[in-house]
């Protein structure tokens, strides 16, 4: 086995607990927990959920039970037994083509994520620099290009650097502002002020408005999507079998705290009617600080929020593309050019091609009005595609427990079959709810909406990977040491 054969990314069937990498490559389980938290949670949705007041607790806790818990525990078991992430789990549990489909769904989902995330970064920066910039296509395009390609460059240097920046971004841009927000909220109530949102038992549940409420609740299952993504880095841990589950439990706690408490704090201080969604989370922070005469903190927190978004972006750049690389090299699904690694052992060419596609989409988002206004359609399509991956993951987990009950696992999820059943049902419900027209499509034809979302999901989630599968060549398989590019 050459140096390059060491399963740093783990596609070997060596039990995770015995995987070895060189000391300089290890990341701590806390850093991995930070990466996971950073890729899933931020303060961005706090004003949106603050509108629901106390009911936001229910809107986050129920999905935590039926989706976060199954996703986290099942992926902890799988990652502690089979290194390589979603591809390895599904290809061993179901079949190799399904493994490719799963990793493709995880990868494809990110393509439309970056422009909207970076659009948020542009509007947050605009709030503190000059609010007029938020509606400037040139400004938004410049932010998207500069920030995205900087992220590609950092990701191409190695996972450990990404882990450090993601951890830093989470602490600086999410945990510290979140703690400040919650502290100010408690002080606000402690001063005898009345909460802007009623905090009585009757407000614990959202009002029932039929299908709309069902859509609201089930859509929130997706708040926790991404918890499994960093499993691809599991073999960068010293003792994956023990450390990955610990990492997942810490991430679960952090994600819940980040989602629930800041949203509650905003709902105490800022009336829902004063929240302007065009101004986003920054106006909520500004209003909280204004209440205490501390508005000098607003620009500082604005930059901190940007840091958190960039940390989250880095984890998404580093994760799914690495999973795609592993399957591509093993099965020859992508041309050798895309399988090349740079001198740091990172899938640089995949990142660059992904970057070009993202840049084109990002420029369209920033410069073509109709695209940016209709961008939410793409977010529906990509989340539908992502949910296919979860369905496959839960089926694979049950199969792996049945087919390989004695396979060494560092962690065994309790009641795995039941857990997978709940997770599968939750994912399926979220998939079905995705076909209900949202607020943005109120005046449209529901059948047309179904066709757009269904057609888009089938095309992106099934047709494209099918074409890759059909066009693969045996000569594209990489059994030798990877070619290194400068």
């Amino acid at each position, binding site marked *: 086995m*050459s140096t390059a*054969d060491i399963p*740093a990314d783990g596609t070997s069937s060596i039990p995770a607990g015995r995987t070895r990498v*060189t000391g300089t490559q290890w990341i701590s389980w806390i850093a991995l927990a930070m990466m996971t938290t950073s890729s*899933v949670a931020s303060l*961005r*949705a706090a004003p*949106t959920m603050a509108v*629901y007041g106390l009911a936001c607790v229910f*809107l986050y806790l129920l999905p935590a039970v039926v989706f976060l818990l199954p996703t986290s525990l099942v992926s902890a078991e799988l990652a502690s037994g089979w290194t390589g992430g979603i591809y390895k789990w599904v290809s061993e549990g179901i079949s190799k083509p399904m493994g490719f489909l799963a990793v493709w769904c995880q990868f494809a989902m990110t393509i439309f994520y970056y422009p*909207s995330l970076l659009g948020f970064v542009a*509007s947050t920066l605009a*709030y503190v620099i000059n*609010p007029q910039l*938020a509606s400037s296509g040139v400004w938004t395009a410049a932010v998207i290009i500069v920030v995205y390609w900087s992220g590609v460059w950092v990701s191409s240097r*190695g996972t*450990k*650097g990404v882990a450090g*920046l993601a951890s*830093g971004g989470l602490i600086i841009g999410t945990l510290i502002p979140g703690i400040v927000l919650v502290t100010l909220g408690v002080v606000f109530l402690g001063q005898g002020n009345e909460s*802007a*949102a009623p905090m009585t038992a009757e*407000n614990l549940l*959202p*009002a029932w408005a039929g299908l709309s409420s069902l*859509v*609201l609740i089930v*859509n929130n299952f*997706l*708040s*926790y*999507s991404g918890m499994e993504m960093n499993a691809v880095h599991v073999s960068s841990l010293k003792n994956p079998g023990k450390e990955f589950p610990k990492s997942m439990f810490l991430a679960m706690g952090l994600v819940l705290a980040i*989602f629930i408490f800041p*949203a509650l704090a905003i709902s105490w201080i800022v*009336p829902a*009617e004063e*929240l302007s*969604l*065009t*101004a986003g989370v920054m*106006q909520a922070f500004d209003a909280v600080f*204004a*209440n205490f005469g501390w508005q000098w903190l607003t620009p*500082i927190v604005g*930059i901190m929020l940007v840091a958190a978004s960039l940390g989250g972006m880095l984890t998404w750049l580093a994760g799914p593309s690495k999973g795609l690389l592993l399957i591509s090299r093993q099965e020859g699904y992508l041309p050798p050019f895309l399988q090349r690694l740079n*001198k*740091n*052992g990172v899938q640089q060419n995949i990142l660059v091609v992904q970057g070009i596609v993202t840049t084109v989409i990002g420029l369209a988002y920033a410069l073509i*009005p109709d695209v*940016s*206004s209709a*961008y*939410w359609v793409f*977010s529906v399509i990509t989340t539908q595609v*992502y949910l296919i991956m979860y369905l496959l993951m839960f089926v694979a987990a049950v199969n792996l427990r049945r087919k390989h009950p004695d396979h060494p696992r560092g962690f065994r999820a309790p009641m795995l079959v039941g857990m997978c059943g709940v997770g599968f049902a939750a994912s399926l419900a979220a998939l079905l709810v*995705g076909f209900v027209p949202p*607020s*943005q499509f109120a*005046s449209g034809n529901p059948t047309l909406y179904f066709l757009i979302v269904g057609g888009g999901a089938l095309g992106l989630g099934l047709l494209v990977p099918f074409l890759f599968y059909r066009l693969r060549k045996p000569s594209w398989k990489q059994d*030798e040491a990877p070619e290194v590019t400068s």
Partner: protein
Amino acid sequence: MTTPTENQSPRERTWIYVSACVILAAMVLWAILAFSAARETNRAEEKADELIVALHKAGAHTPDKDQIVRVLGDDGGATCANPNEALSRATLLSLLSNGATGPGARPGIADNRAVKGQLLIIEVYCPEELAEFKVFVDNLKTENLTGS
């Protein structure tokens, strides 16, 4: 099966961290210098009173007047900065969504209070934008999901 081993040097990583910190510090400095909180003028106070009356009429919780003055000033602040432009609308539409902040974010059916406040702010602070914005809002399907 050959798998990649990453071998970034600690020195390079240190440089990346240091550069990130320097860029972050520069951006904080830039933001502090560029950020201008809303000015507390007589007109800002009058507008805040108007908004409080409008909120009261709408049956909404009325916030602290000073808070409104400091955030919205006399021109509505960021809320009134081109609310009918495509990117401003894209921001609003993207926030009429679930509670996800990662790639799980997708639109849903929003509570009707999500846009009510913004409509009132525009009505008071930048009425010239109201007609166009109202047409846009009227095309959104919202429900009373909070029961208030």
